[in-house]
């Protein structure tokens, strides 16, 4: 009988600082994991926090963490060579099969980019597996941009729209909400195109509305939902919405179910 609550140790191999409060921790993990899945990261005395994988590489996973409270503050006290406790991966994650041979539009708001980053990576490494890859990523201001170095790489393989809500006059970034770009997308057949939307609740609401208005079909839209979680494994009840457990049945939902 397996004890799912017992965490195991993982070593921090590299820390990438995106902003003052958002770092990516590259840590050791052996085993299968999909983009969109999450781990329960813990530090004894401080507790656990669910964190999505933002990157997957042989024996290494990336966790991009925003410093907001008890556990995440303490994670930020750790550096290369230090250890974190993990359990997981949990949740369904994104199934890249759903997007193969389609025109794929990924819309990410802020830290919402982390859970889909693995999907962007996958198709930028296997460009022949999609008809088209478009990434629209929105951040509040230029200094909130995450994964800046990745954008240069992705730019070569995909159509990338990097936009900020607001910037200084002389900024080189495009200014505008992610939703503004959706009607202008050049898609061959919007009714067969697929979209993935991840970000804060309001951003996801407006973005999905815009996609539908532009002609995307409900069943071709996927979203990832965040809710308070304590166990991550269908027991504690905190993540339950109607008859759905976000931690088990999600966090990724087809829009027909996750609305």
């Amino acid at each position: 009988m397996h004890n799912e609550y017992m965490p195991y140790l993982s070593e921090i191999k590299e820390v990438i600082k995106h902003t003052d409060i958002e770092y990516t921790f590259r840590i050791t993990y052996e085993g299968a994991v999909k983009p969109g899945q999450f781990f329960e990261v813990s530090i004894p005395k401080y507790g656990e926090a669910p964190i999505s994988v933002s990157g997957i590489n042989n024996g290494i996973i990336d966790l991009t963490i925003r410093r907001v409270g008890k556990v995440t503050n303490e994670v930020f006290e750790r550096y290369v060579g230090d250890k974190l406790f993990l359990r997981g991966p949990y949740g369904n994650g994104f199934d890249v099969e759903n997007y193969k041979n389609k025109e794929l539009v990924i819309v990410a708001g802020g830290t919402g980019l982390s859970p889909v980053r693995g999907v962007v990576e996958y198709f930028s490494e296997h460009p022949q597996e999609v008809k088209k890859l478009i990434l629209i990523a929105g951040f509040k201001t230029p200094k909130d941009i995450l994964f800046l170095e990745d954008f240069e790489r992705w730019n070569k393989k995909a159509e990338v729209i990097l936009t900020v809500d607001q910037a200084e006059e002389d900024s080189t970034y495009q200014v505008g909400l992610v939703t503004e770009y959706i009607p202008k997308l050049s898609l061959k057949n919007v009714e067969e195109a697929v979209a993935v939307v991840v970000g804060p609740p309001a951003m996801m609401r407006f973005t999905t509305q815009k996609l539908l208005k532009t002609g995307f079909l409900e069943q071709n839209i996927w979203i990832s939902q965040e809710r308070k979680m304590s166990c991550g494994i269908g027991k504690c009840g905190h993540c339950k919405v109607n008859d759905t457990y976000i931690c088990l049945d999600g966090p990724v939902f087809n829009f027909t179910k996750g609305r």
Partner: protein
Amino acid sequence: MGFYFTKDGMNAVLKRLMDEYLVYAPIRMIGGGAFSDTNSVRYGQISKISDIIFNQKSEYSFKEILLPLSQTLFFFTEDQVKEAEAPKKGAIIFLRSCDLHAVKRLDEIYLRNGFEDYYYKRLRENVKFILLGCQNPFENCFCVDMQTNTIDTYDASIEQAGDGYVMDNHCNAWESLLSSHCLNQQDVQPSHVTETGVHVKIPDGLSIDAANSKMWDEYDDRCINCGRCNFVCPTCTCFTMQDIFYTDNGKVGERRRVAASCMVDGYTDVAGGGSYRKKNGQRMRFRVLHKVYDYKERFGYHMCVGCGRCDDICPEYISFSHCINKLESVVKEVGDNNA
């Protein structure tokens, strides 16, 4: 096989069972009632058959035996974890039909929904259930309408009969023990309730649209979100993980899980100060629809077993069964809004 025992015979059986099991049953706690100056009936360990309170409903259910209010999962230092040991003895739980139906709900979540729960399973595997027959319903019970008034998956049943006790036994391992201490063998059918004072009707056509009804608003002010209705409910299973350490600067501590309530503040809080279901009426809606609607959508049968404990305990006299009975007009109301 059925048996009749004298009090002494029954106590001899219990004594033997206590070698192997901790034995839990509803017992009287002096001065511990829901309303001050009352004595409450709660679950606790017994040592003799007369400790059991046969003629009253227990205020809290048996569930804390399988899901302790606070349960240590493991001990930790900064870089090591050590699993908490399992209790050495198994347990016998005396409980009523509705509560034995509730065990099925606990099993659904803790053994089946997604992952198997290690801590629950290791207790559960060593628990035996002895059914307390019900001759009469208690106040607020509505088991008949929830179809939880009868059950045959018990290990044994017991009821008072004159100065002694009758038992129906399903557990092979106990057969010879019971035969050797009984006064005689006889056919025994555990009593069950066939009519209750309270009735509920869960309307057909109930859907998640019921969440949009105005009816829930009435609970915004009436309910004081104390969470007692969750804590007494034999089918509520929520918890929150918690780390504690033994001394302020020490590096040694434990991770626990502690019973949680969807009625109490903080249950859904997320980063940035966000929280879902801020109003008490919305929490009431979440609890009620879980008990009599969406649990069934997921698992195929209702979660609520009709024990009425939430009605018994509420300090604001909020009645869950009345609320269920309002759902009929809620279905009409949201139907009209949609039309």
